[in-house]
């Protein structure tokens, strides 16, 4: 059990103190100033593009927009924060979970954040910046309402913190979600879980083929960012590429697309790791043994596994690091039959809004919570996995 924030206190006392603090109204000025201070710091962290993106998302103008939309939505209604929100972060404090923490803060909650035992404050640049900003005198109000701690597998600790909370947020793999779900919440509390998800890109072969070279270049750059920023390991990183159109067009465009993509990766001088190269090689070969697999092409910059049909269970067998599953469909409508509950984000190129709406309407499973243009797969949104953070982090009081 280690406390990152606040420092130098007994953790039980810290929880007691935290619970004594009243909650804040959504978009409280003190919170806005804290978020802005943090944003300024994050934008400067150029070594971490995803942290810079988080910084931009938190900047004054954007938060102001969010606030306006919120005020519009809650006009003539009385909405309060829920109280104490307990966040269980993924093993590598990832930016995505910081978004949810910030939204909980904007909603006015007290927050308890449990980061992974693997985290070392000095090695986690992002976390240490947040702690830094919390220490500044002008942010006392936020600091008093925040606990950041870590502890190893300790169900009792999780149970205690869960019983003290009004909302629990779990980021992690399916097994983590299952394990934490067995630990009771306070009866009054609600819970948001973010389990394993899988994402795909849908490319209109005809549109890619006829795109102007400038547009093609942009598409490839964006596709690179989507797939390589998080080593293809984020839940919204595209891992399956579905091409729509006629066979001839698809085959022609595939050759061009992948050879251009190879160049893009080489130009970026993305760091390739031997262990990942071997892992991709092994994963691809293992998948080649499946009946539905047509072909496995192992390459230096990335590898491709093409399927006749994509079996549901190959989603768990994806190793990230530049491995692309591929399949064909005559049209977008056909893709809806491939979608399983686990599927989260579809990034697309060459489709109209109407086509996309028609597609998502036809999906018979629980799958698909986001449909975004290629290049925005990793962009965070206040609605994630089908749930609105601000809504889940607040409650409406009916006054008649």
């Amino acid at each position, binding site marked *: 059990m280690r406390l990152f924030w606040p420092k130098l206190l007994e953790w039980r006392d810290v929880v007691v103190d935290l619970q004594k603090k009243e909650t804040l109204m959504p978009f409280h000025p003190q919170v806005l100033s804290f978020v802005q201070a943090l944003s300024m710091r994050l934008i400067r962290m150029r070594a971490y593009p995803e942290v810079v993106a988080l910084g931009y998302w938190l900047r004054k103008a954007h938060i102001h927009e969010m606030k306006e939309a919120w005020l519009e939505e809650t006009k003539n209604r009385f909405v309060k924060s829920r109280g104490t929100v307990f966040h269980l972060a993924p093993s590598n404090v990832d930016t995505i979970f910081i978004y949810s923490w910030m939204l909980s803060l904007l909603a006015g909650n007290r927050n308890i954040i449990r980061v992974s035992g693997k985290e070392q404050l000095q090695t986690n640049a992002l976390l240490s910046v947040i702690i830094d900003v919390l220490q500044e005198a002008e942010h006392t109000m936020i600091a008093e309402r925040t606990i950041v701690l870590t502890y190893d597998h300790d169900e009792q600790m999780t149970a205690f913190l869960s019983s003290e909370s009004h909302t629990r947020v779990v980021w992690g793999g399916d097994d983590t979600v299952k*394990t934490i779900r067995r630990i009771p919440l306070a009866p009054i509390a609600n819970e948001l879980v973010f389990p394993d998800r899988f994402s795909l890109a849908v490319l209109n072969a005809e549109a890619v083929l006829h795109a102007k070279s400038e547009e093609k270049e942009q598409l490839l750059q964006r596709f690179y960012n989507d797939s390589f920023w*998080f080593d293809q*390991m984020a839940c919204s990183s595209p891992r399956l590429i579905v091409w729509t159109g006629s066979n001839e067009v698809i085959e022609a465009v595939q050759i061009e697309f992948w050879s251009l993509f190879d160049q893009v990766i080489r130009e970026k001088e993305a760091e390739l790791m031997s262990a990942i190269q071997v892992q991709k090689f092994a994963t*691809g070969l293992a998948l080649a043994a499946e009946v539905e697999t047509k072909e496995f092409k192992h390459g230096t910059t990335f590898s491709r596994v093409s399927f006749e049909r994509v079996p549901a269970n190959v989603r768990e067998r994806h190793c990230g690091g530049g491995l692309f599953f591929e399949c064909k469909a005559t049209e977008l409508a056909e893709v809806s039959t491939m979608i399983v509950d686990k599927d989260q984000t579809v990034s697309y190129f060459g489709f109209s809004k109407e086509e996309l709406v028609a597609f998502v309407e036809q999906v018979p499973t629980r799958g698909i919570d986001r449909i975004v243009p290629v290049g925005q797969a990793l962009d965070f949104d206040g609605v994630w996995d089908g749930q609105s953070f601000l809504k889940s982090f607040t409650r409406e009081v009916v006054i008649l």
Partner: protein
Amino acid sequence: MMYPYDLAKQEKEKFLVQQLNELTSRHLEHSLEYQAMIEKSGGFVQAQALNELPFIPVQLFKMMDLLSIPREAVVKVLTSSGTTGQQVSKIYLDKETAASQTRALVEVMKPVLGEKRLPMIILDTKSVLKDRTSFSARGAGILGFSNFGRKHFYALNEDMTVDWDGLRRYLDEHRGSRILLFGFTFMVWKYFYQEAKKQNIHLDMGESILIHGGGWKKLQDEAVDADIFKRELKERFGIQHVHNYYGMVEQVGSIFVECEQGHLHTPNYADVVIRDAITFEPLPNGEQGLIQVISVLPKSYPGHCLLTEDLGTILGEDDCSCGWKGKYFTVAGRIPKAELRGCSDTFTFDRKGENG
């Protein structure tokens, strides 16, 4: 000429290429999974050189069962030593492959150990052998090498402490005869050498010879290399001859023993190719890369041509000053594990350990 280190380059390559082409065809015919893998990833054309043969990563045996024989023909299953929670490799041997494995071990060691069975001290616990149904790499190693000795003495107690009194009695009993010692590199260092150092124990093991294997990974962390290892053991126990061997459960027949010059040698029926760690392109002698191992022995499963996760360098071929022919090489250790990021797989209560 010292069998099995007496085939020169041209002859050896010709023999291996012909054997390996046949083996590849055989496995394509008898293992559906292997066939699917090779055919869907570029196919197989008869190779003209060793480095043209299709190879598969060792890791695959952790992911799936690969056999080229009916299950009822399996007489022995070897498992790799995975750390807790890791997937282990499962290697299926039939009578023929199991027998050729035993024979190969005897043959590659003979030039080092001679014909006679020596009194043998095993620097491990007896309990490693308790479970005879599944052979861990440690158990299989001990079992395989114990054939070279007689009057086996296990130097470690169940709790990994050294039975110093028993060891001294054993040494007194066999004073004057050559003694064979066997153990795993890391265990020899940690439980035997370091313990002796701590207790300030010196022994005279006389004309003894130590065979050890299992990898330097843990010793690398402590900055112990082969030279230090040999020097310290000589100084503290008087062990004159130390021979490391490199091999893996996944490929029977590939046991590469260190000659007196400190080089690992390839016997007639096995070989190595070094490949670029990123592109897998074959590299010339003298350059470090991933070790690909080749052996003519795996007939019951498609493990004749494997890409390992170990880094090594071929120093030369046929011209080692020890007089043995064949390629000789050194192993630098494992490639570092990849830590990929992502938003899944949190601090987990599920103890998988691997990045999954």
